[in-house]
């Protein structure tokens, strides 16, 4: 799957410029699904990225695992979900020193959450690189009940926690690693615009 190109939008929407090798500095790499291809491309660009790399991969139904392992990073681990790999990711950040690079690749939900974790751990924003690959479903926070709904592909959508019908805003919270959804029929209860598929 090639790199996703998003249409320009309001300025709080994140941009994912793509992965560029910073050489053989200590690195943490985290990818899900088709994000594996961005890691393979990165390694093809500069093999030395793997010299001191800790690579974590969430297959999400794909079979890139063996090819990533064959890149021979210093450490390679797979996990079934971001939640399952969070403790490992946090430990890697806690043990990291200044100079460590973080490479994130895959879906917006993964990149957003991992970026928020890394910033909270003190990693400077300019040490984080990201590349979007795979589906463009969004991780949405309901601004009313604060619940998170994963993999939202339509606008509006129904909050999986409080059941309100939410308008999908382009406004992104870096702290939460999620977009924000606002009740679409607050002024006109029941008047819900036609459901559309979210476009890149």
């Amino acid at each position, binding site marked *: 799957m090639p790199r996703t190109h998003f249409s320009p939008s309001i300025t709080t929407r994140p941009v994912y410029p793509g992965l560029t090798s910073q050489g053989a500095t200590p690195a943490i790499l985290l990818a899900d699904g088709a994000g594996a291809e961005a890691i393979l491309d990165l390694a093809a660009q500069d093999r030395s990225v793997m010299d001191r790399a800790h690579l974590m991969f969430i297959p999400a139904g794909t079979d890139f695992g063996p090819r990533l392992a064959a890149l021979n990073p210093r450490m390679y681990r797979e996990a079934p979900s971001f939640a399952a790999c969070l403790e490992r990711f946090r430990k890697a950040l806690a043990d*990291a020193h200044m100079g460590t690079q973080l490479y994130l690749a895959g879906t917006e939900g993964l990149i957003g959450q991992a970026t928020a974790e890394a910033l909270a751990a003190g990693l400077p924003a300019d040490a984080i690189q990201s590349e979007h690959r795979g589906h463009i479903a969004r991780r949405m926070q309901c601004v009313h009940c604060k619940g998170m709904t994963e993999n939202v592909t339509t606008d509006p959508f129904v909050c999986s926690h409080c059941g309100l019908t939410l308008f999908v805003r382009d406004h992104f919270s870096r702290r939460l690693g999620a977009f924000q959804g606002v009740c679409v029929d607050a002024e006109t209860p029941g008047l819900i615009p036609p459901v559309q598929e979210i476009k890149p």
Partner: protein
Amino acid sequence: MSAQMLRVTAREALSPLVTRFRFEHPEGAALPLFSGGAHVVVEMPDGDVLRRNAYSLISDPLDGSGYEIAVRREDGGRGGSVFLHRQVVVGDLLRISAPLNLFALDLRAKKHVMIAGGIGITPFVAQLKQLARLQMPFELHYAARSRAEAAGLALLPDLPQIHVHISDEGNRMDLGAVLGGQPLGTHVYTCGPEGLIDAVAETAARLGWPRGALHSEVFMAPPPGTPFTVTLARSGRTVTVGAHQSLLEALEAAQVPVDWSCRGGACGRCETGVSACHGQLEHHDHWLSDDEKSSQTKIMPCVSRFRGDTLILDL
């Protein structure tokens, strides 16, 4: 810019070359508080020249009872520090600007590493007081040539986080060791000679540090050079800049108002447009980008000079 007359209430030699001065309000009024790293500009009427030098505050940022600075006597300098050392005594009144901070701590950092060379220790003296109050992790590395010259020793508390490197005693600072292995969220601050700042930037780049975690301050005195003449576009007047005078000082002496704040090429306040330039601008500031510098359409009169036939300023 706001400034007020303050009285010199103490002076003390910290080393053969460095003297501490304390200023208080003549009526005992409280002075504006500041943050660690802030400086003030001290005005010195020296005969018929008015000298203005910026000095970092070393007193407690939350103590408004007075301001303190530590001044190194630069015998080969332009005269401001020598004036303070030779002519200023307790009881004198001097005009002191309100504090301004171009070298503040980034309070988002999880740890602060401060690197000082020589008299570059001064901004850190106030920052240490601020950090102690905030209870934030820090490390300070202070490099000096010899113990006798290390005026900072008299200003620094005795803490295990403070490391003194005296090159005379064979205890040079190893930047690789200082910057290697710092936890995530560490910011580095360097103040001292340009060579030290470059060395820190180089070492940090080699270790993969992102630029946003690096901060530095060079307090540069306007460098001398060959005299030159500028023409002012609006009035058609010409102003001559002497060898040991800055363009800003020459404009001030000619009563041409130019906004300024740091007088050291760092803050950007004095930025002036160039309408014509036949010759070479000698940029010494840290404000203009490389592209702006090479386009020769802007100049920072506090530190930069000119060599060539004609220079016309948008003034």
